[in-house]
């Protein structure tokens, strides 16, 4: 399923001064997986969402909650 880009995740990562590769290493996935999530090509499982939020010091709502207006 193709979704919209996850710009909130990208901006949280940039705010933490992390590259996709660094975030990928920290959560135990490949760089392409982080890239696919940010570009909206892959819909991650809740476990991976939690790992990403922990690595970026944000909440699930901050990165993955969709307001009705977002859709």
């Amino acid at each position: 399923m193709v979704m919209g880009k996850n710009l909130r995740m990208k901006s949280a990562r940039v705010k933490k001064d992390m590259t996709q590769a660094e975030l990928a290493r920290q959560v135990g996935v490949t760089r392409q997986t982080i890239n696919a999530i940010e570009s909206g090509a892959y819909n991650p499982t809740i476990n991976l969402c939690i790992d990403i939020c922990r690595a970026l010091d944000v909440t699930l709502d901050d990165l993955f909650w969709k307001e009705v207006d977002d859709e």
Partner: protein
Amino acid sequence: MNKKYDERQRWVNYRLSHHALMIVFVLLLMNGLVRSSFDMTWAEPMSEAFVLIAVPTLYCVTRSLFQGAYVGRRETYGRNSIAFAVIAVLFLGVFALAGDGLIADGKLSQDSTTLLAGIFFAYITALHGIKFIRERSV
């Protein structure tokens, strides 16, 4: 759960495996139709099996590689490329030294399997090489 691959890689590989299965169905059906309707044998049994297996395999390998899902989390493109190159050279070398030709009696010969395997592994080597260069440039 296979820890070698992350969740997106497993998802990609499941999807591609399903596509490959569909390709196998179509190829087997087409092969059966050609052989029964036209009473035509286009290859020796081993070569025929190799072609029917190689086509969906190459589809899977190509798409999986370019979606970053073939080699697992460790991304060993360079090392894999060398290993596949050695296998390709072995097959092509054996065919060059002992092969009797690609076609015999109007059909793919038994020896053609060696040549096709060489081409198969050479192709996979090239794909790994391209992916290795692309990943280094990111």
